[in-house]
């Protein structure tokens, strides 16, 4: 190609789309959710402990926790969650017991997919939050920290960004086109919309990068740092209703006792700092924290001092407007009440999502036909 050819061609080009873009920052939503994925499948029975149940001690001669912190109805909390005790006393901690689904999968991959897409048939590629929240052109609905998978916010119509951390994200977005352009078909319009979502998030994160951080001290762990980053985004008014972080290491097939307690300590310490920071910023009533995991673990411990993949487990919910206490029904540990050695769920996990949709966000419940909300908020 020579210069003349090129000029000949370039003269045909319209000058459209050359104006710099203004990425309008919105306002912090009034109802924010922080999702905490306990990756690897958390042992529910050693988290919320049926400490007066003989079957518990029979099934777990080595792993039973005897010094749990009694809550009520013969249930105790793992002692390493002690940092969260004030929240229980203030009625801001809810445990939903026996959450799961029918014919549970024991594969991490499949079951996580079930949880994140709210479909047990493995035929849905939209995350559950994609279905609950409407996509907006001017902002992202979710930020995933520490993972590059959009998870519950993925799929068609989703609007979330995932990143290892904000600094990495800002480096990655440097080369993305910032110009607006005329989208002459639906595919281009979609691409432009995605581009704008990323640029808006980057623009906001750039601003927040230089903004003030909370005075609360977070645990110096990977989990603590992520929670601190989320905190910074929330207190500086990021226009995003959902954050997702992950705490890794729950796949405790062998030598479970110490590592699991250690994870409980991380979880409790991190969430305590997060709630303190929210309280200090006057935002605790605007935030709801919910944990989830692929599945619980087998009732009986295995020969390696660990537990194998199981089924139903409790979920922890925290927040200023949460109705504290024990919700749902604890599944029976009696051997004849187990299914293949696993607890049988008493609450379908989609009831959790229905609750968030209907009672927290006041939005339609996509699972209204089968799943009713619970009164934990």
């Amino acid at each position: 190609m020579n210069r003349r050819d090129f000029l000949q061609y370039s003269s045909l080009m319209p000058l459209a789309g050359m104006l710099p873009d203004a990425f309008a920052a919105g306002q912090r939503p009034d109802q924010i959710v922080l999702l905490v994925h306990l990756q690897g499948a958390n042992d529910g029975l050693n988290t919320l402990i049926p400490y007066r149940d003989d079957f518990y001690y029979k099934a777990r001669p080595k792993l039973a926790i005897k010094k749990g912190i009694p809550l009520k109805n013969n249930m105790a909390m793992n002692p390493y969650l002690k940092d969260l005790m004030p929240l229980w006393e203030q009625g801001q901690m809810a445990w939903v017991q026996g959450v799961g689904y029918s014919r549970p999968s024991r594969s991490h991959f499949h079951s996580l997919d079930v949880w994140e897409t709210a479909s047990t048939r493995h035929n849905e590629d939209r995350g559950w939050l994609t279905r609950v929240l409407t996509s907006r052109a001017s902002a992202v609905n979710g930020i995933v920290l520490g993972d590059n998978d959009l998870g519950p916010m993925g799929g068609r119509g989703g609007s979330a960004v995932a990143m290892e951390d904000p600094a990495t994200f800002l480096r990655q977005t440097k080369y993305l086109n910032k110009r607006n352009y005329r989208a002459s078909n639906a595919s281009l319009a979609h691409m432009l919309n995605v581009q704008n979502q990323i640029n808006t998030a980057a623009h906001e994160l750039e601003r927040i990068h230089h903004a003030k951080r909370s005075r609360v001290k977070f645990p110096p762990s990977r989990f603590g740092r992520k929670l601190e980053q989320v905190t910074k985004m929330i207190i500086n008014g990021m226009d995003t209703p959902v954050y997702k972080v992950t705490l890794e290491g729950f796949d405790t097939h062998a030598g479970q006792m110490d590592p699991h307690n250690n994870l409980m300590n991380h979880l409790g310490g991190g969430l305590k700092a997060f709630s303190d920071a929210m309280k200090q910023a006057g935002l605790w009533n605007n935030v709801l924290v919910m944990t989830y995991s692929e599945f619980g673990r087998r009732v009986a411990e295995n020969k390696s001092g660990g537990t194998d993949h199981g089924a139903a487990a409790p979920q922890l919910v925290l927040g200023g407007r949460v109705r504290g206490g024990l919700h749902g029904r604890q599944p029976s540990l009696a051997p004849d009440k187990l299914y293949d050695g696993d607890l049988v769920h008493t609450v379908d996990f989609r009831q959790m999502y229905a609750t968030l949709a209907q009672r927290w966000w006041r939005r339609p419940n996509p699972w209204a036909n089968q799943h009713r909300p619970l009164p934990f908020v």
Partner: protein
Amino acid sequence: MGRLSFSDTRHLVTRTALGAEWGGTKALEGKTRQEAINILLTSAPIRTPGLPALTPWANVTRMKQQSNMGKKRARKMMKIEGQRLKNWWIKHLLHTDAPVNEHMTLFWHNHFTSSLEKVEQPHLLYLQNQLLRKNAMGNFRKMLHAVARDPAMLVYLDGNKNIKGSPNENFARELLELFTLGRGHYNETDVKAAAIAFTGWGTDRNKGTYTYSQVKHDPRTFTFMGKTGAFSGDQIIDIILEKPRAAEYLAEKFWKEFISDNHPDPRVIKRWGAKFKKSNYSIKVLLKEVLNSDQFWSSKYRGTLTKSPVDLVVGTLRTLPFPKLSAGKLSHICQLLGQDLFDPPTVKGWSGGTAWIDTQTLLVRTSLLNKLTRHSKASEKMQSYLPKSTGTEVVEWLLPIAPVLPLPTTPGKRRMVRALMLDPVYQLK
């Protein structure tokens, strides 16, 4: 009928092959539609690269039974060998002389999905992949019968667990919902009935073959789609294929693959379906019908399909003389872009279309193209391999419609190619 312009031939090639090699695309210029399509669909002999070493399944089973440690090791080994298989396919996609046949192989992989994740045994996925490749442009009826007996499919949709007294409906349901008719064209009784017909079908994983067990088969009489009998699985398939809807369902999928994300005109689908069925399900007949249609050539649909990760990654490297990346690297990039070959995300396969592009994948796409086209020692060499042509023709070669961002004001072949590849329109075909 008019003669094809260069822009027309680029349209034809990018939508049916893998990328648009300069020579092949240029060679079709000036031909009629029919001539060009006939040339394109005349396949070169297919030679896949040698199969990577895979551990016999009997050895894997033995390892798994030894201990928990052995189980872990076996899983790890299958993961590594699965990756080898993924690399094997990427290599073939990159080098095949029959890109249209390979495009169709990938299409069928997305129609008859199976995943390493569930099947765990790379060798079975390899056999399925070869089956799809062999029948990619052949006869759909023949392929469907073969897929129903395919060991990977029998494992993936639990066909091997479908036995008398304890039916598993997974395969029967997907046969109706995803492979032939689509939702709303059958009912739950049909699913249950079809499941009975396929009881006793199974697989020998060590040999990688189909098995049939008389004992596990339920020989009872039932009603399926209004017909009553003790039908076999093969008879079920043939009853389904008698329905015009089966051919129309495939015609709809072809519309989405080759023409547009928009809903098709039902009259067009009826017409294509009728031709397809009349040809006794010849895939080539349907493909020719689609490619010869005015809809395929309409300017309304140019540049409206989103390139799949394979289109983008493999297509770019087949089109332009960039230094080749390793198969492992390419496979990893495709995975990051949401198209992990042999591991589709759901039984429905990849949803494709605009769903290829989300906040994650747009960043990966941009960064990949940016890295590829960045000025370097290696890219200097590339300059001399670029075709001698005019600027207008280069734009027509690389973009389906006019770029939406301004082009560089300083001339230079490489700069031009870079600008075109970084234009959002490059993501489309």
